[in-house]
């Protein structure tokens, strides 16, 4: 494991053998941001892994930012494939597609066209059973 020395003010010296690098960190333990050698990582130190990576599949079905719903491209019960556009949002002068992170079935839709949505609010719920064996009643 690397030897880390806090230098204060968010700066850290990371030494690995004789080689060293400057790193920067900020944020709470469950989403600690780290800058190292030009890369940025968001690390959940409560769990010891990266929350953003782990949650991407779920987050992809919520709006990542305040936005307006431009179009709802699917309906409840529809089978979708990985990469299909489910919802089209508008923010910052751009169209932002919300895509299916994997194959699945639309369980519910929680937004309407024209609605202003906040980050994290679920827009679509997907069931992750491509085969459909566990379809609900």
């Amino acid at each position, binding site marked *: *494991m*690397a030897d*880390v*020395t*806090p*230098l*204060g*003010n*968010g700066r*850290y010296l*990371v030494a*690995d053998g004789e080689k060293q*690098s*400057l*790193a*920067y*960190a*900020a*944020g*709470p*333990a469950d989403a*600690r*941001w*780290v*800058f*190292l*050698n*030009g*890369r*940025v*990582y968001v*690390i959940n*130190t*409560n769990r*010891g892994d*990266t929350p953003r*990576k782990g949650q*991407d599949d779920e987050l992809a079905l919520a709006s*990542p*930012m*305040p*936005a307006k719903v431009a179009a709802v491209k699917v309906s409840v019960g529809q089978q979708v494939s990985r990469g299909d556009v489910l919802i089209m949002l508008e*923010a*910052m*002068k*751009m169209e*932002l*597609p919300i895509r299916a992170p994997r194959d699945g079935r639309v369980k519910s839709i929680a937004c309407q066209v024209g609605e202003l949505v906040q980050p994290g609010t679920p827009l679509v719920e997907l069931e992750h059973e491509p085969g459909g064996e566990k379809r609900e009643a």
Partner: protein
Amino acid sequence: MFRRILIANRGEIAVRVIRACRELGIESIAVYSDADAGALHTSLADRAVRIGPAAAAESYLSSDAILAAAREMGAEAVHPGYGFLSEHHVFAAACADAGIVFIGPPANVIERMGSKISARQLAGQAGVPVVPGDTPADQSDEAIAAAAQRVGLPVIIKPSEGGGGIGMKTVRDASELAASIAQARREAVASFGDGTLYVERLVERPRHVEFQIIADAHGHVVHVFERECSIQRRHQKVVEETPSTAVTPALRQRMGAAAVAVAKAAGYQNAGTVEFLLEGTGDAARFYFLEMNTRLQVEHPVTEQVASVDLVRAQIQVASGEPLPWTQDDLAQRGHAIEVRIYAEDPARDHLPQAGRLLLYRQPSMPGIRVDSGVTEGGEIPVHYDPMIAKLIAHGDTREAARHRALAALRDYPILGIRTNVPFLIELLEHPRFISGDLDTGFLDTEGAALRARLSDDPPPDALAVAAIDSAPVGRATDQPDPWATLRGWRG
């Protein structure tokens, strides 16, 4: 010279203009929306006026609100920056009517060059080649589709008004025509309030090479050389540089003369940019007039670094009636400059724009590096505006020197709290095709996925070790020597 200038913009370009005013001894007046009450440009200016709520349409795009502020504050001139009202001829005319100098070309020139149709006509009359294209008088979807077939596929369909790539659609197959025309029309109406569309033949593997020009009120026009802006994503420039690796001295002379000819034909005044598509490289390359941007360009700093000029100061001087500070013979290129745009976006998630708080933000400071930015540590990137938060400009005596400086600076540019494209830019500057200067406007379409794939690795052990240190219970912190410990009392 003016005593007081209102800056009708926000972010890094407002900061840039405020600094130019300060150096000239001119009082600067910022305007801000509610979302920007704590923004850098708002606090940096000598005075600041609230002009409306966060929505741009009711603040930075509101001619009335901005003119009212200018009148109330006694501003003698308005600098529009880029974007927002910078190319709105009606706003420029309203300024003139109010006896306030619009720092840019006359309203009728903006209007004429703002329409791609009339700009192309003018360029053609000035003897400058243009890409074959058409704007049908009949603007029905069917007529646009017919025009596309006439010009010859592949084509680009784009709004006649506006710029920045908004609403531009490439069509290679006739089956895509209907959908693309509809989408372009929708975006044109939404962004510019005008759905007029223009059809142009697509030049394959073109470079985007533009020329900076500036003209005074006394008939002098000079060009300040080219900028290569081929690295674009969805028509948004990402990296710009000068000189272009494709432009030889002879080609530079021809293109520069063409740019000046367009500006003269237009009766241009102030700073502007003549954009060309370039097919091929070197003396034999062909260039086509694309459009003219009647304002300061985002990427103006590369020109400033290589030509040792201050374009914003020159804009203000020329607008106040002074002659151009240089003749064409005074101007020369020295070394090489590369600008990378820092966007608040997540490259790993299709460059999704990001908004939020900058938990930590430290700009690199080193020889040959200039950072133009509009943000500070602890500040908020609002959701309402363009996600570009800063520009990093590297200058060196050779292209490789500038590239290495840009890389060293990006690796020393921590931005935490929101995702940015810094890691993506590092990969881009290390790409063999970028290193060799083998660029075209499709570069990121072709290479973007491979670049993004290089970003998807998991945190290395060193990053995990750093994260672990201060997320440990606070009590442990006393084990470590922390120079900030003594400051905590007053930082709280």
